[in-house]
């Protein structure tokens, strides 16, 4: 038979974790002391610990007639007593904390406001880390010398995400663009049927020049025999084509009737360039020559340093003169710059929000005349530090929320992501700054607590030689805030009235002590 004592002790210990930490030891001592008496009472009622002599044929724990025997009753009594500890500990946890009104986390406190802002910023930052497209947009590209890598676009920034460069232009730049480009690569995505044994799947395969991954610091992909085409797969395509984790290097597949051997699998989240592909078929120049000259694709180039010298905006309009005298004008967008784009957009919207803020909300915080009251410098400084801290905390919260929204619904680098981030960041900052100023106006300048108990004062529309508006008080008795219903020449903004310490006795903390005790 299980001894009730360890079980009851375990129950009390578990219940003690519900009690508030500051009173847990005393609470547990009280219950253990009572448990001692409960067990003694149980032993006394059961006639001590004498084992019951069980008659043959009688069930254990049962007396003749089927009733539970004394030991079982004692055990039940003890456990039932200990189960009552849980509601008691819960009650103490819920009501005991209300007896500590001086906690810094009371509703309306400055600390609670700050923690709320930090929580919002942290939650949105965590969401950034969890969403793969957002993470990809914020992290720097994992390519060697990304500052000199650029996407060449013939239609400006907005066209960089679409295949717009003709194959013939690329082939011409390989020779005539050496003054601008150190190296150029081309890729053109298209749907293709990939056949493995008796299975066939339709994937997006890009036909690319063989130096594509060498430019991206992944030379092992596509190395080896350059006479035959090689296939590099994404991690997801590899899982789809070859489930089971088998080795795929060197295996031969058929793409549009052409046998191609698999040369590598791209690491996850490595591809940050425009276009979504399942694989790249790396071919020599003879292979690309088989494509129509007007086929449009993407061009990746490693620029000579001088192409981006003197500028930090991340894009350049480049002019290349062909051997026949024709001039090509196109745009180069730095890959490194693309990863800084979210921050650049945010900084620009921050500037715009600061400029637009005075047009949407009054900036003054109100009148706080210190007639006869001299506040310590630390208290006066704390109010401004709190205001500055709120401005500093809302900015990252808005940034991460706008990035989550923009890159969660659209691809990094796309025009849609730019506009979504721009709009959400600007609107978010504007409303966040408005809230910061309004929150500051509603707080006591001494304790930074939210003012409460609004009361209407005066008669409505009685503005001539009278005053009407709303009055709020600080629950700690530091002062009153008068907010005029209509701004007048003698009371245009809210005004704070400091109360001297003699008034504090009228303002209780709402905690009733145990009065009347002898």
């Amino acid at each position, binding site marked *: 038979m299980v001894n009730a004592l360890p079980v009851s002790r375990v129950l009390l210990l578990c219940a003690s974790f519900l009690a508030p930490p500051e009173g847990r030891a005393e609470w547990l*001592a*009280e219950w*253990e*002391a*009572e448990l*001692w*008496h*409960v067990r003694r*009472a149980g032993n006394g009622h059961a006639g001590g610990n004498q084992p019951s002599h069980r008659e043959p044929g009688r069930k254990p724990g049962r007396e003749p007639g089927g009733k539970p025997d004394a030991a079982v009753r004692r055990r039940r009594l003890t456990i*039932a*007593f*200990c*189960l*009552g*500890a*849980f*509601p*008691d500990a819960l*009650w*103490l946890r819920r*009501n005991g904390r209300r*007896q500590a009104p001086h906690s810094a986390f009371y509703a309306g406190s400055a600390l609670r406001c700050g923690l709320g802002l930090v929580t919002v910023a942290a939650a949105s930052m965590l969401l950034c880390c969890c969403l793969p497209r957002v993470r990809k947009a914020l992290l720097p590209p994992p390519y060697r010398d990304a500052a000199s890598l650029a996407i060449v676009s013939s239609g400006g920034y907005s066209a960089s995400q679409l295949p717009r460069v003709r194959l013939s232009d690329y082939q011409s730049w390989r020779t005539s663009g050496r003054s601008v480009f150190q190296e150029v690569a081309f890729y053109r995505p298209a749907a293709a049927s990939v056949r493995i044994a008796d299975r066939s799947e339709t994937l997006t395969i890009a036909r690319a020049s063989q130096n594509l991954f060498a430019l991206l610091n992944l030379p092992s992909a596509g190395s080896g025999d350059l006479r035959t085409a090689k296939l590099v797969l994404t991690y997801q395509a590899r899982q789809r084509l070859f489930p089971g984790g088998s080795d795929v290097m060197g295996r031969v597949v058929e793409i549009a009737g052409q046998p191609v051997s698999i040369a590598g699998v791209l690491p996850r989240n490595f591809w940050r360039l425009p276009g979504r592909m399942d694989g790249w078929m790396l071919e020599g120049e003879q292979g690309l020559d088989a494509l129509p000259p007007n086929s449009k694709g993407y061009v990746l180039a490693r620029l000579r340093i001088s192409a981006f010298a003197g500028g930090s905006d991340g894009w350049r309009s480049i002019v290349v003169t062909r051997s026949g005298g024709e001039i090509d004008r196109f745009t180069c967008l730095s890959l490194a710059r693309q990863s800084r784009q979210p921050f650049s957009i945010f900084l620009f919207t921050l500037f715009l929000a600061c400029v637009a803020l005075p047009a949407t909300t009054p900036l003054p915080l109100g009148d706080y005349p210190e007639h006869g009251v001299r506040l310590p410098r630390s208290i006066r400084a704390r109010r401004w530090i709190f205001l500055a801290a709120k401005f500093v905390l809302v900015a990252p919260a808005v940034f991460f929320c706008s990035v989550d929204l923009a890159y969660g619904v659209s691809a990094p680098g796309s025009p849609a992501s730019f506009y979504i981030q721009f709009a959400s960041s600007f609107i978010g900052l504007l409303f966040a700054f408005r809230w910061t100023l309004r929150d500051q106006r509603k707080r006591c300048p001494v304790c930074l607590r939210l003012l409460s108990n609004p009361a209407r004062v005066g008669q409505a529309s009685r503005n001539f030689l009278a005053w009407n508006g709303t009055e709020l008080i600080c629950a700690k008795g530091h002062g009153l805030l008068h907010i005029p219903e209509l701004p007048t020449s003698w009371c245009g903004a809210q005004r704070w009235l400091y109360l001297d310490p003699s008034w504090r006795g009228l303002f209780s903390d709402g905690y*009733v*002590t*145990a*009065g*009347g*005790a*002898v």
Partner: protein
Amino acid sequence: MRWMPVEPKLSHTAAMILQAIHAGQIYGFSVMEMTGLPSGTVYPAMRRLERDGLIVSKWEQASIAEAEQRPQRKYYKLTRTGRATLELIYRRYPLLERMIPSSPAGKA
């Protein structure tokens, strides 16, 4: 210090516990035995009564517990406010005093 009798808004359970303490059952378990209420009811109710100032709790002297070779116990007793409240409760629950007779020490 003058005390003001509190308007009796106690439940019957709380009134029984208050009367049990007044009757001399000063420990939690003895209140349970006297009233027949479970521990999950009695102890939270006693904490409420203590919060409202009707009873007060104290730990017994360690020497008493050591002499009897048992753990130190917490006991409860009525405050002046609690006694006044109890007088008012008798009007609301007339049979309370008969269910749990007050001890002579409690009446003093």
